[in-house]
C-alpha cells in the first residue's frame, strides 16, 4: 500500500515538474531569442543608417563599442572590416547565404547553430547604399544549453520531491490504515471509518453472523453429545487411529482414569487390558467386533466399530456395556432348562422301568399292586412338577389376565392350615395360625400357592415333633405381612439367597425322601414380585427358619 502510494505520487509529481520545466523553458527561450534577434536587427539597421550617412569609417567606431560581431563585406564578397578578426586574413564571403540574400533583397536574416550546439548565432545583413553589405552576428546560448543549465536545479527539485513524497506516503498510509486496523470486527457496522469500506464491512458483518450461528450450532451439538454420553450408563470411548478423542464418565469410572489423563494419549493409558487393545486393533482394520471383558469381577461387553470418513478408517468407537446381570441370567436359564429336562426325565424313567418289568412278566401277580402304586406316585410327582412349571411360567409372563381382587389373608392361611393339617399330623408337627385379618389386593390363587408352598416346606424340612407357626398381621410400617416360622433344619447363611432359584436345593443329592419339585420357593418369589412384596429370610441352621412376606414394601 505504502509503496504503491509512494510510486504513484512520485510519478505524478516528477511528470508534472518535468513537463512544466520543459514547457516553461521553451516559452521563455522563444521569447528571449525573439528579443535578441529584434535587438540585433535594430542595431544593424541603425548602424547601416549611420554608415550610409557618415561613411564607412563609422563601422570601426561602432564595432569596437558593441559586444556583437560586426562585419563589413564588399559587394564582391571581400571582407573589409571585422570587429573580432583581422579582415585581411578572412576568406571571401560571397558564398555565404546571408550575403547572397542581402545583395539580392537588401536585407537577410539567418540563424545557425554552432558545431557543439552550445550556442546559436543570429546573422542579420543589410545592403548599404554603396552596394557593400553590413552584417551583424549576435551569439547567445542555444535552447539546449538553456534547458541544460536549468537541469541541475530540476534534478535537485525532484530529489527533494522524492523525500517529501516518501514522508508524505508514509504518513498518509499510516493515517489511512489506522482506522482500518482499529476496526472492531465483532461489530463491524458500528465503526465505518470510510464510506468506501462499507460494502466490505457489510460482508464481514454477514460473515460474522454466519460464523456466530455456526458456532452456536456446534456448541449445541457438542452439548447434546456431552449430555448423552456423560449421562449414559454404558462406557463410550471414541478414538482416532491411536489416540483417545473422548471418553465418557462411565468409561472413566470403569477403567479408573480421568479424561485429562488419557484424552489425546494412546488408548493404552486408558487400560492395559489386552482385550481392549485387540478390539481396537481389529476395529481399525475395518472389522466391527465384540468381545467380553472382565474388570473388577464384573463382565462387560465390548463393542468396537470402525469410523469411516470418505471410505478411510479414521478411528473407532468403543462401547462398553455391563452385561454381568445378563450373563448371570443367561447361565440361570441354561441351568434351568438342563434341570427341567433332568427333573422330568427321572420320574419318567422309573415309570417306564416299572412298566417294562411288568410287561416282561418278571413280577409276581401279588406284587403288581405295589408296582402300580410306585408308577402312580411317580406319575403324580411328574404331574405336580409339570403343574409347578406351568404356574411358574404363568407368573414369569406376569399374565395380565390374572384376576386381582381383595383377599383376606387370615382366612387364606386358615385354609392352607386345613389343607396341610393331615400331612403335619403324619409327621407329628404342630401347625397353627395366629394374627389379625388383613386385606391385600392380589390374586387369590397365587397368594394361596405362596402360603401353601412356604408351609409345605416348613413341614417338609422340619424335625419330628416340630412346630410351624403362621402369623398374619401388619409390620411397623403398617404393611400387610405373612410370616411362616418353623423349628426345622434351617438354611445355611450363604445359601439363603439361592434357595429361591429354580430347582435349587440345599441338599444337593436331589433326594426324593422329602419329595417336592424344587420349584416351591421359586413360585413364592415370583408371586412376591407379582404383588410387589418383599421376602425376608431369617434362618439359623438346626434351629429354624422364619420367612416373612411384606406386601407393598
Amino acid at each position, binding site marked *: 500500500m505504502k509503496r504503491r502510494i509512494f510510486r504513484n505520487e512520485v510519478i505524478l509529481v516528477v511528470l508534472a515538474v518535468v513537463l512544466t520545466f520543459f514547457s516553461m523553458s521553451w516559452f521563455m527561450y522563444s521569447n528571449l531569442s525573439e528579443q535578441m534577434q529584434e535587438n540585433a536587427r535594430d542595431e544593424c539597421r541603425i548602424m547601416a543608417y549611420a554608415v550610409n550617412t557618415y561613411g564607412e569609417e563609422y563601422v570601426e567606431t561602432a564595432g569596437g563599442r558593441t559586444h556583437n560581431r560586426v562585419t563589413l563585406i564588399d559587394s564582391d564578397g571581400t571582407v573589409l572590416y571585422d570587429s573580432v578578426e583581422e579582415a585581411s586574413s578572412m576568406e571571401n564571403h560571397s558564398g555565404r547565404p546571408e550575403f547572397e540574400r542581402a545583395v539580392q533583397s537588401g536585407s537577410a536574416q539567418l540563424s545557425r547553430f554552432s558545431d557543439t550546439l552550445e550556442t546559436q548565432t543570429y546573422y542579420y545583413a543589410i545592403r548599404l547604399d554603396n552596394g557593400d553589405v553590413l552584417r551583424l552576428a549576435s551569439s547567445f546560448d542555444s535552447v539546449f544549453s538553456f534547458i541544460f543549465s536549468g537541469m541541475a536545479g530540476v534534478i535537485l527539485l525532484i530529489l527533494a520531491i522524492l523525500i517529501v513524497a516518501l514522508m508524505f506516503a508514509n504518513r498518509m498510509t499510516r493515517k489511512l490504515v489506522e482506522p482500518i486496523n482499529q476496526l472492531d470486527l465483532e461489530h463491524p457496522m458500528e465503526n465505518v471509518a470510510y464510506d468506501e469500506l462499507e460494502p466490505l464491512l457489510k460482508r464481514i458483518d454477514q460473515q460474522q453472523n454466519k460464523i456466530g450461528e455456526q458456532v452456536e450450532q456446534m456448541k449445541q451439538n457438542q452439548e447434546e453429545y456431552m449430555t448423552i454420553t456423560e449421562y449414559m450408563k454404558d462406557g463410550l470411548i471414541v478414538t482416532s487411529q491411536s489416540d483417545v478423542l473422548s471418553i465418557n464418565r462411565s468409561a472413566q469410572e470403569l477403567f479408573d482414569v480421568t479424561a485429562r489423563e488419557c484424552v489425546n494419549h*494412546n488408548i493404552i*493409558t486408558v487400560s492395559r487390558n489386552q482385550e481392549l487393545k485387540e478390539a481396537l486393533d481389529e476395529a481399525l482394520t475395518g472389522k466391527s467386533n465384540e468381545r467380553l471383558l472382565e474388570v473388577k469381577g464384573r463382565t462387560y461387553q465390548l463393542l468396537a466399530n470402525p469410523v469411516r470418513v470418505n471410505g478411510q478408517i479414521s478411528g473407532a468407537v468403543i462401547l462398553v456395556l455391563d452385561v454381568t446381570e445378563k450373563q448371570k441370567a443367561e447361565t440361570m436359564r441354561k441351568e434351568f432348562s438342563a434341570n427341567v429336562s433332568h427333573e422330568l426325565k427321572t420320574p419318567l424313567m422309573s415309570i417306564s422301568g416299572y412298566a417294562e418289568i411288568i410287561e416282561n412278566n418278571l413280577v409276581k401277580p401279588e406284587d403288581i399292586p405295589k408296582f402300580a402304586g410306585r408308577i402312580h406316585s411317580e406319575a403324580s410327582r411328574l404331574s405336580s412338577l409339570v403343574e409347578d412349571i406351568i404356574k411358574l411360567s404363568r407368573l414369569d409372563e406376569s399374565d395380565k389376565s390374572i384376576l386381582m381382587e381383595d383377599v383376606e389373608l387370615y382366612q387364606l392361611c386358615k385354609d392352607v392350615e386345613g389343607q396341610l393339617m393331615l400331612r403335619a399330623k403324619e409327621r407329628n408337627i404342630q401347625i397353627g395360625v395366629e394374627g389379625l385379618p388383613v386385606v391385600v389386593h392380589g390374586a387369590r390363587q397365587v397368594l394361596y400357592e405362596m402360603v401353601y408352598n412356604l408351609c409345605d416346606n416348613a413341614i417338609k424340612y422340619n424335625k419330628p415333633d416340630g412346630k410351624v407357626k403362621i402369623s398374619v398381621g401388619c409390620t411397623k410400617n403398617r404393611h400387610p405381612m405373612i410370616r411362616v416360622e418353623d423349628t426345622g433344619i434351617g438354611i445355611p447363611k450363604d445359601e439363603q439367597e439361592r434357595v429361591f432359584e429354580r430347582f435349587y436345593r440345599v441338599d444337593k443329592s436331589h433326594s426324593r425322601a422329602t419329595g417336592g419339585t424344587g420349584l416351591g420357593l421359586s413360585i413364592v418369589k415370583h408371586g412376591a414380585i407379582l404383588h410387589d412384596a418383599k421376602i425376608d429370610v431369617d434362618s439359623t441352621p438346626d434351629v429354624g427358619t422364619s420367612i416373612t412376606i411384606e406386601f407393598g414394601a
Partner: protein
Amino acid sequence: MRDLFSRQMEKLHVELIEMGALCEQAISRAYQVLMEEDPKAAEELRKKDAAIDAKEREIESICLKLLLQQQPVASDLRQVSAALKMITDMERIGDQASDIAEIVQTTHLKAPSTDIKIKEMAQITQRMVSKSVDAYVKQDLIIARQVIQEDDLVDRLFDEVKRELVERLQDQNSSGEQTLDYLMIAKYYERIGDHATNIAEWVEFSITGQHEGEQG
C-alpha cells in the same frame, strides 16, 4: 524439531506402558501355570517373554535416539534415563516369570498346598507389578510409594515360606526336590517384587528427581 521430540517422548511413554502390560500378562500367565497347571498358559508365556525382549530392544533404541538427537534436559532427561533403567527391570520380570513356568513344566510340579504361602506371594507381586506400571502411567507418586512399601510384605512372606519349607525338608515323607523347587519359585517371586519396587523407584525419580537409593 520440538514437535518431533514430543512425538518421540509420547511414543516412548506408550511403548513403555505396552511393555508393562506385557509384564503383567506374563506374570499372570505364570500364576496360571503354577496354580492351575495350565499348559496353554505356559505356551502363551513363552510368546510374551519373547515379546518383552523385543520391546526392550525397541525402547532402548528409542531412548538412545532421543538422547543423541534431541539432547533432552531436566525432567525430560530424567524420563528417558528412568525409562532406560525401567526396561531392564521389566525384562527381568518377564524372564523370572518364564523361569517359574519352566520349573513347573520340567518337574511337573503340583500347585503348592495352602499352608505354603506362595499363592499369597504370587498375588501380591502381581499386584505390585500392576501398580508399578499404574504409577508410571499416571505419574502418581502415591501409588509408587505404596509399591515400595509392599516390598517389605513380600520379603516377610518369603521368610515365612522359607521356614515352612525347612520344616518340610525335615519331614521324611515329603520329596526334597519338590520342596527346593518351591523355594526357588518363592525366591523368583521375591525377585519380581524387588524389580517392581525398582520400577516404582524409577517412577519416583522421574517425577521428583530424587532416587530412593540416594537417601540414607
